[in-house]
């Protein structure tokens, strides 16, 4: 039983990271119906920025964190301006390919700048555990869970309660109509990319004590975040986090109870099953096809 709870908590913590990356997918998808295959790589880059600020320049953890988030938000805007905006409105497949290309580029450049070694950031959560009876919970995992909850709540409020959030939802429903209503769609899309890059950075920095930062971390985790986003319905902010947690728990349970090899496959098996039975995901909207 104790094993089970321990596995559950570490699964939830891992799942929260998937959820944070999936949140980035969902944000961009919600606003522009574009799937950003470079999301994991944005996370990796955020982690490297934080490493530069904290590990190399010796800044305070929180200042370095904020600096990395700000820098990545700017980077997200630039990436949107250069790569995505010129092809917005063309078939979805071209945009997917463009973001895959961007991911390739970011991975290689990060490898060139920061090398291929595993890097580590010293955080206030790196050491120390919380003991509850015989249950031992590490702070780094708890910090990921807490931060995910806070970010998810903030983003949900932002999308549903603020003017800008409403504008984002409107431009995702119908870009042209949103233009007519006076919504500055291009600026809205820029802001969405900035937010999603910032969320990715949070994931990268929080993840740093658990898995180290290296240039391929984005690809590995990004591929796990897809099942999370699909499970949650690819358009729902709470859905992304719930999907991420489910995938994380499934993965860590499969690693513990099933024979070797299932750990890496289980999320995809679940994904294919969900796509077969309920393609719109757990929180997705019902789709009706028109000509």
């Amino acid at each position, binding site marked *: 039983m104790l094993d089970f709870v321990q596995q559950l908590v570490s699964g939830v913590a891992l799942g929260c990271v998937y959820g944070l990356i999936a949140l980035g997918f969902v944000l961009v998808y919600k606003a522009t119906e574009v799937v950003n295959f470079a999301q994991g790589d944005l996370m990796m880059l955020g982690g490297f920025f934080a490493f530069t600020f904290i590990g190399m320049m010796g800044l305070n953890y929180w200042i370095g964190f904020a600096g990395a988030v700000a820098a990545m938000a700017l980077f997200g805007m630039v990436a949107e301006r250069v790569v995505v905006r010129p092809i917005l*409105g063309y078939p979805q497949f071209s945009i*997917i390919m463009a973001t895959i290309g961007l991911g390739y*580029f970011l991975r*290689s450049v990060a490898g060139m700048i920061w090398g*291929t070694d595993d890097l580590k950031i010293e955080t206030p959560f790196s050491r120390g555990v919380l003991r509850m009876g015989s249950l031992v919970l590490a702070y780094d995992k708890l910090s990921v869970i807490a931060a995910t909850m806070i970010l998810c709540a903030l983003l949900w409020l932002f999308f549903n309660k603020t003017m800008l959030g409403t504008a984002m939802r409107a431009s995702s429903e119908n870009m042209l109509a949103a233009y007519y209503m006076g919504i500055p769609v291009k600026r809205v899309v820029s802001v969405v990319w900035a937010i999603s890059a910032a969320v990715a950075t949070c994931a990268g920095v929080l993840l740093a004590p658990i898995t180290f930062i290296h240039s391929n971390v984005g690809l590995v985790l990004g591929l796990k975040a897809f099942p999370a986003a699909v499970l949650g319905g690819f358009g729902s902010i709470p859905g992304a986090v719930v999907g991420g947690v489910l995938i994380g728990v499934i993965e860590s349970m499969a690693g513990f109870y099933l024979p070797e090899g299932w750990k890496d496959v289980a999320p995809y098996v679940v*994904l294919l099953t969900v796509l*077969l039975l309920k393609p719109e995901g757990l929180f997705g909207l019902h789709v009706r096809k028109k000509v």
Partner: protein
Amino acid sequence: MRFMFKTDYEDDIRLFPHSGYVVTYGVLLALLLIAPHVLSSYLMSQLVFVCIYAIVGVALLILTGFTGQASLGHAAFLAIGAYTAAYLQKYNVPFPVYFLAAGLLTGIIGAMVGFPALRLTGIYLVIATISFALIVEEILARWESVTHGNEGMRVKTLSLLGVAVPRDSPTFYYLCLAVLVLTIVGTLNLLRSPTGRAFVAIRDSETAARSMGVNVALYKVKSFAISAAITGFAGVLFAHKLSFISPEMFTLQLSIEFIIVILIGGTFSLHGAVLGAIFIVMIDPFLTYLKDDMPGIIAGIAATFGAGTATAGNIQSSVAAFASLNGLKGAIYGIIIVLFVLFEPLGLYGRWLKIKLFFQLFPLYKRATFKRQKIYVKSERNR
């Protein structure tokens, strides 16, 4: 400019619309046939890879270009073909038999992937095919009694009708070329048959195709099966060319490379698959050439523009240091993909058509002929 008067449907669907086609393709085929006697063995080896990539490109074009179903899982089909060949070869099954068996098995698995894909479109389909490929990769690594796991499998020399065909021999190249030509001719015939018309109809509008009486589900599954089977054939050749296969050769990276083949070549014509394959395979030697020779050339240019010997030497060594940076190849790959998507969406074959049209219409060419129409995004959720 040539004017053609088509008087019946047979004229419209002819494989060679006029004698010019016979001449140009005849010359091309003749050049390809004498290639082994002219080119170096390294280039011949690259040419074999061009053939294999082009076969996969044609397969992907059937699925992605003509049926409109994106797939990022073709490395898995290639792997299934390759492993089937390697496994059957151990039991002394003759080449023609396991070649066909690999295609058949891959085709059946392709159809099995096609069924769940029926309910999926766009991004969901892409993700489902990625998951399928990752699962296959893991199975290959774990099913050790058949695949030898991560140790990989050795593939013996191909023997065709009792004659050994080493992987570097001209005969092996002719075999790959023959498979490529047969695939292309077969696909061209497929595309002008009712099945091919149905594929294109599904790509252009699924609902419209259905209302015209096309059985969308059946044709989608067919498209998956045909595409997978052709990739399986390519897998057999791939296994023989490499003579050693292991699971880490068939990663997502390879699937992305296949998509890049058709993206760079152009997704609307079979020419695209071949041009894209040439580009992808030849970019490696080209980058190596740049890495070796570029520093000297740049230093030479700097010297002619009046830089001293010391400065020129400095420039040479810094350029050389940059060129040998780890991961430069990946960065160049990324940039190429992005640039093609942004500036040459019709691919290399599209560029060729533009150049051809420019000269045909000489002073009257308009850029707008090839301008893409921009569709402002309407949500898929209420489309």
